[in-house]
């Protein structure tokens, strides 16, 4: 267990030094929480049907996770029917390899929309390692890429970054002088920088917020327009998504997407894409021809990476209901202080469970499992009422049985001797 002690020490050191001690981070998070609450309130006032939608979304997720193998088959059948290609990757390594083969050689330019699943597989780093030029195109993710490190929130990856630092980072990569007080100037500089990348890219990549099994349609929420440009202008569109994103029907997928954006802080997002395959036209003699103005090829990579096992577990399958709206984090008293340093690849209380069973394994996830207060505010805020405290308590029990227990808690046991 000597290695666990090192893992624990490294986690706590980062948590304290880079998270808890940073007043700058705390201020940025406080501002984000205030903005989130205000926007959500406005959205809920405008759309009072939201609580009912939440209940329906929960039922859809419960059904979907209980029928995953069947829905995966159905999805792949639909994607193939749509002249796309469907791949099921057992783990992160396999997903990255499939994508690398699809990207091909020699060096290619790849533009990427934000995808937590690709963070899980470390796809950008993998493709960069193969010599490709890869660009994150979501502004927050772009800032994370040029800063280094990892996203600090599921939806707002650079939520911890004040404008002054963002300006400095963007200036460093574009070579432009940027007024650090002017957020619009920072956004415009990134827009100019990425424009050429979209045009010249060989491959566009995205994730998905929901996938309908009946039609094989990907639903993608975005505001910036970067996903639009990363899925329409390139020869190939490769989408990577966890199998838990699949729901039975197009209507179900829309409902899940709607609940996701509502609780992700959007009254209405600028764009919701529905992508079911490569571009096509039937304008000449009604003969369907693939590869019109958009991509000629469409590939959907469905990632298992432990999800199918978790789906069978009566307690932990609930973690797969998570739509990654990030609402829980804004109400977590630990996130207020530690931001994305609370967790490893995934963030916050629910993120620790994702890390434990899917992204990093038990040992790496164990230190953060003891960060949670089990207070349950996340469950209250979660549109699907996911019981993260209950799962965390059960996870701790598993971790202790495997010996992944911080030394000071062993001392606690002595109180009972």
């Amino acid at each position: 267990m000597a290695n666990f002690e090192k893992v624990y020490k490294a986690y706590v050191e980062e948590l304290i030094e880079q998270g808890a001690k940073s007043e700058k981070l705390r201020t940025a998070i406080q501002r984000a929480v205030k903005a989130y609450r205000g926007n959500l309130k406005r959205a809920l006032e405008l759309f009072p049907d939201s609580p009912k939608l939440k209940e329906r979304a929960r039922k859809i997720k419960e059904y979907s996770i209980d029928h995953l193998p069947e829905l995966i088959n159905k999805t792949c059948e639909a994607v193939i029917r749509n002249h796309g290609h469907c791949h099921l990757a057992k783990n992160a390594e396999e997903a990255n390899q499939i994508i690398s083969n699809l990207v091909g050689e020699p060096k290619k330019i790849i533009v990427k929309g934000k995808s937590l699943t690709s963070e899980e597989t470390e796809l950008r780093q993998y493709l960069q390692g193969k010599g490709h030029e890869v660009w994150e195109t979501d502004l927050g993710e772009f800032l994370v890429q040029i800063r280094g490190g990892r996203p600090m929130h599921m939806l707002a990856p650079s939520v911890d970054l004040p404008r002054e630092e963002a300006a400095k980072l963007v200036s460093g990569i574009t070579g432009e002088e940027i007024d650090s007080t002017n957020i619009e100037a920072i956004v415009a500089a990134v827009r100019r920088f990425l424009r050429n990348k979209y045009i010249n890219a060989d491959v566009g990549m995205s994730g998905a917020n929901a996938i309908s099994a009946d039609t094989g349609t990907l639903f993608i929420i975005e505001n910036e327009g970067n996903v639009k440009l990363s899925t329409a202008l390139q020869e190939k569109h490769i989408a990577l998504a966890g199998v838990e994103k699949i729901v039975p029907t197009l209507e179900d997928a829309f409902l899940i997407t709607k609940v996701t954006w509502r609780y992700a802080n959007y009254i209405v997002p600028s764009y919701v894409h529905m992508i079911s395959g490569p571009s096509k036209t039937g304008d000449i003699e009604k003969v369907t021809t693939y590869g019109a103005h958009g991509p000629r090829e469409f590939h959907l990579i469905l990632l298992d990476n432990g999800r199918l096992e978790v789906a069978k577990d009566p307690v932990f399958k609930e973690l797969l209901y998570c739509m990654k709206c990030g609402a829980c984090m804004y109400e977590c008293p630990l996130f207020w202080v530690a931001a994305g340093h609370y967790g490893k690849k995934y963030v916050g209380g629910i993120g620790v469970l994702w890390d434990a069973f899917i992204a990093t394994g038990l040992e790496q996830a164990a230190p953060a499992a003891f960060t949670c207060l089990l207070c349950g505010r996340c469950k209250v805020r979660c549109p699907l009422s996911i019981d993260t405290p209950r799962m965390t308590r059960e996870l701790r029990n598993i971790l202790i049985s495997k010996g992944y227990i911080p030394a000071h808690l062993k001392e606690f046991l002595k109180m009972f001797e």
Partner: protein
Amino acid sequence: MKVYYSGKANLLYQNFPNVHESIVFLLNKLDIDYYIPEGEKHCAEGAFNIGFKDLGRKVAEEFITKLKESGADVAISPYAAGPGLWADYIPDTFGVKLPVPFIHITEFLNEEIKKRNIEFKPYKTKYFLHHGCTVGRKMGKAEHARELLGRIPELEVVEEDHPSIGVEEFRPEDFSTCPGAWLNLTQPELAPYVTENFVRAVVLPKLPEFVGSTCANGHAGIMMGLIAGGYKKPELKYITEILQESWR
């Protein structure tokens, strides 16, 4: 009626003898026959929450035995998680059941004071009432603490607010923030930062003279936060202390 008062050992361990004294004061004034278990470790919540499920079960069984032996009609505690865990998690997980109800002290005192129609002295001050997560959020029993404090003339009670209340079907206590005392056990390195942030972000904006929680663990978290931030105000007082000071 005989009452099993659980939590004295923890209160003393967490350096709250004054809270214990105020509880005893009130029980005596109300002429309640109470029993304080000797050598009580705790009511199993700590063990369960940390993940020592087997140990938790053992402590839970001991708690049942002690409770039976005491001949009490009801168990009370100034801690929130004890009654909360016994409300569902422990019975659901292990199929064990308490012989008598286990309720939060505010519920018990509120009923007894109501029955006796007791009037309190005025106490002109502003008190920040924090609702422990299990009593308020999980069990939905925040009104007892509110009613108790509401019996004190001139006492202004303030609580945490949240923009979702009134927009969605939530009560204020549903969003009550945990002050973070648990970290002192599970990740002590982080505790000063989280508890201090609670005081700074949640309590101080309301400008109270006094602050207290329905959960003695929450109370400990607030104390840690006040110390970590070097805050002289507000002063920490448990609900029973306020009641004691207002007793005619």
